[in-house]
């Protein structure tokens, strides 16, 4: 079997804080193949951004990776053990080289004091062997490719002179100009109007086809996942509770949390349907529930067991995995899921 482009194994991330050690990501594993789009969904605070940043080693100084955690980027010429990288120049491969990232707030990607073009060129000079003139040409070509009108004029402007939608496009152009193998997109459409979101989603789909890169697409919007991703992992309080193909997870959710999320969504094809909230509130990461992290809100929790025992992943058909005691029991009893 060929190696996946990215493999995250047993990733556990704790933060050293005034209130003690806080677990933000708990034993998370997933793979992304070359050219594959994986969605990562979950509520705010579930650990999506922390997981993403660990792939680029962008987490803050108080971060503690568990010694067993491993993140591998498997490139044609070498395999990079990301958490073992130490020197700045070794880290370049995951910071704009083989891996790039785009964010919800594009201004975070742009240095305020230099033009968009200057920044794109500088980045290309660091990560490629291009000449300045080549870098300039490619940058303008990329700005044009992402649908920015009058790209050579825009090249000489500052990000604050761009409209919101154009900034988002420029950020994508910059992230892709170095031809990364993996693009991490952290809520890139969350702050946008649906109309602009649809444009950005379309653009990203086209670019995946054209560039053949893989994407880790983080969002809390299951609709966006349904429209972009091949597979999806659902996170809750630092744990992946369910992962599988988009079709499996959205059409036949198996974990009670995934099911709860989908029932809570207002759906346009049934305006009369009641909205069913997931009961209760998300616990603070400072007091993560023992056992299954979801048991405090789970309507079908098994008394005694779910509150004390951490569920293992149960494999369902088609490669789906679900961390739930009930699912495990149902599978044992021969219920087909």
């Amino acid at each position, binding site marked *: 079997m060929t190696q996946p482009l990215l493999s995250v194994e047993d990733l556990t991330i704790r933060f050293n804080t005034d209130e003690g050690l806080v677990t933000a990501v708990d034993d998370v594993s997933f793979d992304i193949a070359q050219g594959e789009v994986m969605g990562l969904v979950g509520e705010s605070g579930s650990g999506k951004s922390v997981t993403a940043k660990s792939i680029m080693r962008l987490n803050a100084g108080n971060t503690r990776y568990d010694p067993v955690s491993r993140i591998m980027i498997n490139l044609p010429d070498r395999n990079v053990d990301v958490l073992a990288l130490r020197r700045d120049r070794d880290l370049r491969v995951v910071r704009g080289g083989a891996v790039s990232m785009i964010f919800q707030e594009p201004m975070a990607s742009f240095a305020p004091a230099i033009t968009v073009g200057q920044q794109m060129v500088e980045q290309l000079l660091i990560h490629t062997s291009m000449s300045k003139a080549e870098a300039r040409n490619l940058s303008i070509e990329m700005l044009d490719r992402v649908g920015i009108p009058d790209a050579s004029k825009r090249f000489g402007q500052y990000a604050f002179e761009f409209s919101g939608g154009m900034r988002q496009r420029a950020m994508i152009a910059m992230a892709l100009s170095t031809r990364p193998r993996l693009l991490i997109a952290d809520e890139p459409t969350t702050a946008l109007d649906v109309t602009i979101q649809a444009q950005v989603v379309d653009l990203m789909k086209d670019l995946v086809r054209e560039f053949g890169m893989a994407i880790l697409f983080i969002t809390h919007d299951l609709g966006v996942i349904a429209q972009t991703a091949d597979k999806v992992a659902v996170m809750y309080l630092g744990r992946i509770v369910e992962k599988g193909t988009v079709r499996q997870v959205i059409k036949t959710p198996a974990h009670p949390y995934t099911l709860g999320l989908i029932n809570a969504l207002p*759906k*346009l094809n049934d305006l009369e349907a009641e909205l069913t909230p997931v009961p209760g509130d998300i616990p603070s990461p400072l007091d993560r529930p023992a056992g299954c992290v979801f048991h405090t809100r789970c309507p079908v929790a098994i008394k005694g067991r779910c509150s004390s025992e951490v569920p293992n992943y149960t494999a369902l058909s088609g490669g789906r995995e679900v961390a739930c005691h009930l699912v495990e029991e149902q599978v044992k009893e021969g219920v087909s899921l």
Partner: protein
Amino acid sequence: MSRPVIEAVDLSVRYRIGSGLLGGRSYLNAVDRVSVSIGRGSFYGLVGESGSGKTTLGRALLRAAPITEGSVIYQDDEVRYDLRNLSAQDLKDYRKRAQLIFQDPYAALSPRMTVRDIIAEPLEVMGLTRSREETDARVREIAAKCRLNLEHLRRFPHAFSGGQRQRISIARALVSRPRFVVADESVAALDVSIQADVLNLLQAIQQEMGISFLFISHDLSVVAHVCDHVAVMYLGQLVETAPTAELFSRPRHPYTSALLSAIPSLDPDDQGNAEKLEGEIPSPTNPPPGCKFHTRCRFARDACRLETPALRELSAGHFAACHFAEEFDFRREHGHQTSPVNAGV
């Protein structure tokens, strides 16, 4: 529709945005000749892209944004106010009848006050209660309606989750027993699993207390579920208003139709079917002539660039402002929309 609680006619809110170098002034019509009638007990939705003027319209109806032109009449069983002609006394009274629920509960709540004091503040500021006992009783009553208990009232807001904080700001907005409430993006900052809870709460309260709501949201699926009427706003103007089911099943304006098809479908098999709206909303400082939507409209003809289409009633309660509203058939099927029938000019 029942008698209106709010009736605006040709309402405009104009802001002066700096003066030009040569002494010329420029203006921006954040709300541009809007006529809208919100029925008593209605849950009235207002949608549109950001910058379309939703917040400004909501604030003008609360007399919290300057009304430059037009009229707004507020009426309930006790009073009738012309918002452009309110005495200081009347304005004070209007403030307790018409309230705003903020978008961001974090920003809206003072960290140093207990939840009890946060909810009680409007009562004290408006002098609505005569004793601490009376204030406490009112606070407890509204807190219970918003599913906050006595234990919660003693704590500070930072100890609460997003959903609970939003319930606190709802309780604060409702404690003066308003008749008309503007909820501006009240669930936008909440996670889906919590959002449904706050929406259900707003609906229950609306029915129980008979309040009329103007529910502003950029999320059409949310509006579809909670509102009985919807108005669609674009560059300061209403382009379509209709009963909710009607608007969603038979949009009569190309903008509404485009907004609807931009919502990402939960069905992975719908991939790529949606009709995309190109470009971005133009700046209100320099709005396009004719139909303001013509620069992005795939049905635009010459007439659209020259003449402003009137907002007119197409069927009972269904209004749209498109030159071809009578001719188009925008029925949406699986994210597709059909072409205009006989739309030549």
